[in-house]
Structure formats: C-alpha cells, structure tokens
C-alpha cells in the first residue's frame, strides 16, 4: 500500500466510529435484575453512580476515558485525515493533530468493551443479566477505534500539514 493510502482508511474508520459512538452512549448496555427489580446500565450510569458514592475522581476518570477522550480523539483524527483525503487545507488541522496525539493513549473504549463482557460474567453469579443493543454499539465503536489507531499515520499527517504552511 502506498504511504498515505492508509490515511483514507483512517478517515473512514474514524467517521464510522464517531457514528456508532452516539447509539453506544444513548442505549443501555445491559440490564441487571434481582428478584423482579431491574436496573438499566448506560456508560454514563456508572459515572453518575461513582460520583454519588463519593468517588468523584473515579467518576471523572471513567467519564474522561470512556466518553470525552474517545469522542475528541475520533473527531480530531477524522478532521486531520479529511485534510489529506479530500486534499483540503482546513484551519486548525495542526492543533487537531496535536490533540489526537495527546489523546491516543487515553482512548480506552476497547478496554471498556472488555470490561463489559467481564461484568456480565460477574453479574451472572449475582442475578439475571441480559445484553442490550448498546453493548453491540460499544463493541462496534471499539473495533472501529482500534482500526483507526492502526491506520492513522501520524508522520504522514505531519508532513502533509507542514507542506501546507
């Protein structure tokens, strides 16, 4: 593959991940029930529960690494690689590239997807668990995110943006 060709793939994967990220956050991941009472779980529910129990730093950490960082990472990667793919010269692409670099190791959605699976196994021992559509969206976002990280060529983006200046 020619150098830079993967940038087009990175653009496609980042956009796909951004799209699946929305239903992943709006749909419940799983429903847990004990003796007839049930509780829905979205990504944000865990953040809220940790916050309410007095563990604000943990709530903030989960919010940052499972919601904020993935969103801004994917958004900035799509912005930067759109420059390359469409041969555009969009403003602030350099800043977007630096943001993508800073957030790359904080984009923990694949880790979150694994945690979802483990939690279902764990909850089975306590009550009844059922998967909800949100979990599939989380999985899809996680896969697209990993593909984005694989394809996004930082050096290539840097060189292209330098050539623009």
């Amino acid at each position, binding site marked *: 593959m020619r150098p830079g060709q993967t940038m087009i793939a990175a653009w496609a994967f980042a956009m796909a991940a951004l799209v699946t990220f929305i239903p992943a956050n709006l749909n419940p991941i799983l429903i847990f029930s004990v003796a007839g009472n049930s509780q829905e779980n979205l990504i944000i529910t865990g953040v809220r529960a940790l916050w309410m*129990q007095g*563990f604000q730093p943990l709530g903030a950490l989960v919010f940052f690494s499972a919601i904020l960082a993935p969103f801004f990472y994917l958004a900035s990667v799509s912005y930067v690689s759109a420059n390359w793919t469409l041969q555009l010269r969009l403003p602030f692409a350099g800043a977007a590239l630096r943001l993508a670099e800073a957030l790359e190791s904080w984009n923990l959605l694949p880790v979150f997807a694994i945690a979802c699976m*483990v939690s279902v196994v764990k909850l089975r021992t306590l009550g009844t668990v059922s998967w909800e559509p949100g979990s599939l969206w989380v999985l899809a976002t996680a896969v697209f995110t990993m593909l984005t990280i694989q394809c996004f060529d930082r050096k290539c983006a840097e060189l292209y943006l330098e050539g623009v200046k």
Partner: protein
Amino acid sequence: MTDHLKVKLSRALTAAGIILYIPANFLPVMTITLTGQVESLTVMGGVFELYETGLVPVAAVVFLASVVVPVVKLVSLSWLLGLHGSEVNQSRRMKVHLFLIRIGTWAMVDIFLLSILVAVGQLGILASVQAEAGALFFAAMIICTLYAADIYKTHMIWQQPMPNST
C-alpha cells in the same frame, strides 16, 4: 520541558506508582451486598472469585490486565529509568518501552468493571455495589505508570548521560 527534567519526572511517577501499588492491592476495591450478605473484594479477590465460579478464561483476562500488567509496568519502568544514560541493552530497552506503551492501558479494565458493577448495583437492599478506597489508589497507580511511560520518550534511551545526572 527539558529531557533531563522529563527523566526526573518519570522516575518520580514510577516511585509514586510503586508506593501506591501497595494500598491498591491490599485495600478492598468494592463491597458487594447481595440479599444481606456483605462481601469486600480486593483486586486479587475479584480474580479469585471469577476463577472459583469456573470461568477460567475470564479470570485469566482480568488477572493479566489488573495484576500482571501493573507489575510488569512498574518493574520494567524501574529497569528502563535505572539504566537511563548507560549503553547497556539499548535496543532491547527500546523494544520493552514500545511494548509498555502498548499494554499500558489494559489495567483500566478493573476501573471500568467497577463502574459497570456500581451502576447496576443500585437495587437498594436487594443488591448493591459500593466502591471502596482501594479503587482510588488503584486508579492513581495506573495514571502514574501511564504518564511515566508516556513522558519518557523512546529516543531518550539513546541519549548520552547528562553531566551531574545519575
């Protein structure tokens, strides 16, 4: 920030990570209450419980992510930073550093797991999951090692030792 300062900061974060590792593993991470039965679990206790329910692959994943990864990170970070500036094993050190960055985030599995369990454990007296102090130490330890590996750049392995730095 100069490279010299980066090395110092990275060393400080690794030291902090080693200290935080102790309470992170000895204090309970969560308390599960199910129909009146109260149970506090440490990180290792959670792995053991998964293992006892017969789910060996899942237990193995959690064991790798939240027990093995932090230890490997702390040990190899100390090794990398201890040898900084010397010419021993430079290419092997580079490989280790790249590997560290790759595996670094997996320890977060435990924190996410906790957030999901806490979220569903809001059924009053029937079932509740409460986060415990150990989780704070655990999260702090992960953040320290993440930053330590991030600040120390791979190219620094090849640098000549600074005057008056050891």
